[in-house]
C-alpha cells in the first residue's frame, strides 16, 4: 500500500522535473545554423578532395609525376602520367585526374608526395547530376586557378 503511493508521487515528481527542463529549453536560443541562408565557417583543416597546389614562386604546380600517390592510393582513384620533354629536367606532367567517386579521403596521397604538391581543398558543396561531374582534372584546375 505504501509503495503504491510512493511510486505514484515519485513518478509524478519525475514527470514535473522533466517538464521544467523542456520549458527551459523552449525559451533558450536555437542552436541551428539555418544552412542555405547562414553558412558556418569551415575549418581550414577540412579534408575536401585533393588539388594540386599552385606555388607562388613558380606560378605553377610542383608535381614531378613520380606516381607515388597513384601507387599509395587504396582505392585507385588517381591517374598520373608524365612525359620526358626536351629542355625540362625530369618529367613534365601531362595527365593528373582524380576519380572522386571512389576516394575515401584517407590522405595517403598528400602525405607520400615528395614535393608536397598535393593538398586538400575546402569544397564541400558538391552536388551533381552525373558521375562524370566528379572526375576532376586536377592539372586543368590548377592552371585555371589564379
Amino acid at each position, binding site marked *: 500500500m505504501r509503495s503504491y503511493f510512493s511510486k505514484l508521487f515519485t513518478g509524478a515528481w519525475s514527470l514535473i*522535473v522533466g517538464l521544467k527542463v523542456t520549458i527551459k529549453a523552449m525559451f533558450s536560443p536555437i542552436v541551428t545554423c539555418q544552412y542555405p541562408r547562414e553558412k558556418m565557417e569551415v575549418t581550414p583543416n577540412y579534408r575536401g578532395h585533393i588539388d594540386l597546389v599552385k606555388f607562388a614562386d613558380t606560378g605553377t604546380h610542383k608535381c614531378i609525376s613520380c606516381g607515388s600517390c597513384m601507387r599509395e592510393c587504396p582505392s585507385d582513384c588517381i591517374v598520373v602520367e608524365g612525359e620526358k620533354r626536351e629542355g625540362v629536367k625530369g618529367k613534365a606532367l601531362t595527365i593528373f585526374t582524380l576519380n572522386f567517386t571512389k576516394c575515401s579521403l584517407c590522405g595517403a596521397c598528400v602525405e607520400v608526395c615528395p614535393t608536397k604538391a598535393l593538398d586538400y581543398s575546402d569544397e564541400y558543396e558538391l552536388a551533381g547530376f552525373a558521375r562524370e561531374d566528379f572526375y576532376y582534372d586536377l592539372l586543368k584546375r590548377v592552371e585555371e586557378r589564379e
Partner: protein
Amino acid sequence: MSMDIEVLEDAQHHRYVLNMGPQHPSTHGVLRVLLELEGEYAMNLLPVLGYGHRCHEKIAEFKPAKSFMPNTARMDYLGALIYNHGFAQLLERAAGIEVPERVEYIRVITSELNRIQSHLLWYGAYLLDLGAFTPIMYAFDDREHILDILEDVTGSRLTYCYFRVGGVSKDIDDKFVTSTRAFIKRLRSRFPMYEDLVNGNVILQNRLIDIGDLNPQTCSRYGITGPLLRGTGVAYDIRRAEPYSIYSQFDFEIPTETKGDCMASFMVRFRELEQSLRIIEQALDGLPEGPIMTPKVPKKLKIPAGDYNSSVEAPRGELSYYLVSDGSDVPYRLKVRTPSYSNLSVVPEMCQGMLISDVVSAMGALDLVIPEIDR
C-alpha cells in the same frame, strides 16, 4: 543458431510472422528480424544478416596492409578512431614499430572523444526508439561540439582516417587543448539535465527496468562484451584487463551494474561518459612534447610471417583484429572480430516471450551498429 526459416514457416496456426524489415525506424541500420508473434508476444526471433556486406575482409587480402586503414573507419562509423587504433596497433605489433609517447597521448584523447560521441548518439537514438523526441536533439547538440573539435584535427567528421602506422597524421595544437577542456566542462554541466529529463523519468524506468535478463553465464556463452557484460556485474574492460597504449597510467573506474537488464546497460554507458571525460582530462594534463610519427617507417611495410592479434575496447565491446601474414606486405588473411555480431546473437534467447515494445527496447540497449556486423 538452432532456428531456420523452415521452422518459422511451419509455425503453429495461431502464430504469425511479422517482418521487422531492413527498413525500420528502430533496427539501426539494415537489420532484418523475423518475429514469430503470438498476439503481441514475440515467441521466436530470427535476425537475418547480410544486407550491408561489403567484403571488407576480402579487400584486405589484395592490398598492402597499410592501405586498409580507411576501411576500418567504415566498419563501425561511430567508433572510427578506435577501429583505426586497433588496426594501427596491430601493424605496429606485427612490424615491431615503437610509437613516440606524444602519439599515444593523442591517440587516447581522440579515441575517448570518439567513445563519448558514440555513446551520445546511442543515447539519443535509443530514446527516439522509445518515443521521446527531444533528448536526441540535446545529445546531438553536445555531439556537434566533439565533431567540430575532431574536424579541426583530423579533417573529417565521421569516418576518420587519422591514425597511421607509427603515429598520427597531423599534430594537435593549443586550440584543440582549449576547446577540449571547454567541452569537458560543458558536458559535465549537462549531465544533471539529462538525469532530470531522462534517467529519472518514471515512464522510461518502467520501459527499461526488468527487460532482458542477461547473466554472466549467458554472456560468456555468446561472447558478449562491453557495456552489456558490465551491466551483469563482470568488470571486464580491455583497457584494464589487457592494457594497451597508455591506459594503464590513467585512473578511471569501470562502471558496473548487477541486474543485467536494459536499465543496467543504459546506466553503464551513461556513467562511461564521465569516466571517459576523466581519462581525457588526465591525458591533457600529462601531454608531452615530441614527434608525431616514428621516423623511418618503410613505405612498403613488410610484415614478418606469422599470426598477430590486437584487441581494443570499442564503444560496443571487444574489438579484435587477427592478421595472418606470409611475409609480404599484403596480408594472407585479416579477421575482424566485431562486438555487435556477438551482441546480436543473444537476441533470440533474451527476447523470447517479450512484447514488441520490449523487443525494440532490448535491441536498442544492445547498441547495435549493423555495418560492423555485416562488414
